[in-house]
């Protein structure tokens, strides 16, 4: 699907705030309300606007620590990627799992109440998985999501 400038502007606005009404979008970009609504629908149907996420302040809810883990699977024996993926996604503290190519096999994002809570998740739930070999942990200090290449 080819986007025009209005589509890109709508996407940028919705990425910032997806709770705005079609009416508000229409006024802001000088469109009629049905046109704004139709364009948003089209972006959704094309899978470009893939969904909505609730942006919460983790610290205010008692989640003070986010850690990114690089996981290298154990070389010994035969390791089932499916089994590892099933087990790792069943851990509620694991927010993201990416299969990657490079120094590690998987990149994980883990949220925890504090460092000792993180240690509990790491030791009891992650390091006990048979497929796990080497792990590297980096504690998140700050994070910024950028609008991306939308003109």
């Amino acid at each position: 699907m080819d986007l025009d400038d209005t589509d890109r502007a709508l996407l940028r606005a919705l990425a910032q705030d997806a709770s705005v009404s079609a009416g508000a979008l229409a006024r802001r970009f000088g469109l009629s309300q049905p046109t704004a609504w139709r364009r948003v629908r089209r972006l959704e149907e094309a899978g470009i606007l893939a969904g909505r996420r609730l942006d919460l302040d983790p610290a205010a809810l008692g989640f003070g620590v986010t850690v990114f883990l690089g996981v290298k699977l154990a070389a010994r024996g035969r390791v089932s990627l499916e089994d590892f993926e099933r087990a790792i996604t069943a851990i509620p503290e694991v927010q993201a799992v990416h299969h990657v190519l490079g120094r590690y096999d998987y990149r994980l994002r883990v949220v925890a109440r504090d460092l000792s809570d993180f240690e509990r998740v790491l030791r009891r739930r992650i390091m006990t998985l048979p497929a796990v070999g080497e792990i590297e942990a980096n504690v998140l200090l700050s994070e910024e999501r950028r609008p991306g290449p939308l003109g």
Partner: protein
Amino acid sequence: MQIDDQDRRLLRQFQADPSQSAAELAERTGLTRAAAWRRLERLRETGVIRGVRGVIDWRALGYDVEVSLRLTLDKSQSNAFDTVIAAARDIPEVIEIQTFLGRVDLRLSVIARDMPHYQDLYRSRILTLPHIAEIEALMQVATIRQTDTLPL
């Protein structure tokens, strides 16, 4: 701000489907509409709820390549972090910037249309970033899970 079990229940439901209205959330959590609305309003005002964001699928827009670049900085320069972050913000294809405590100082998520496009970005925009001591790339093969859901 004090968060009680009702707030947590409300947020659990809300984060599972952020397109729900206050009325739907009220029904799911057994609160009255007025009570649900009041609680959501308070969570917004105090910044616990920062907003509802649209999720863009860059693949659907033709960006087939995503690379996680792990950077180690030359920290002998006291302003190294600020300078690199400012320069990374100028690259439109950088969709995430994170700083860390650990072996990695900084991580950039970079998207590209294809490998030639990535190679071009890497050479002209990434390798030219200031204060870089080491770069390591992890190429994204598949996303198994991607959520911001907190285990409330």
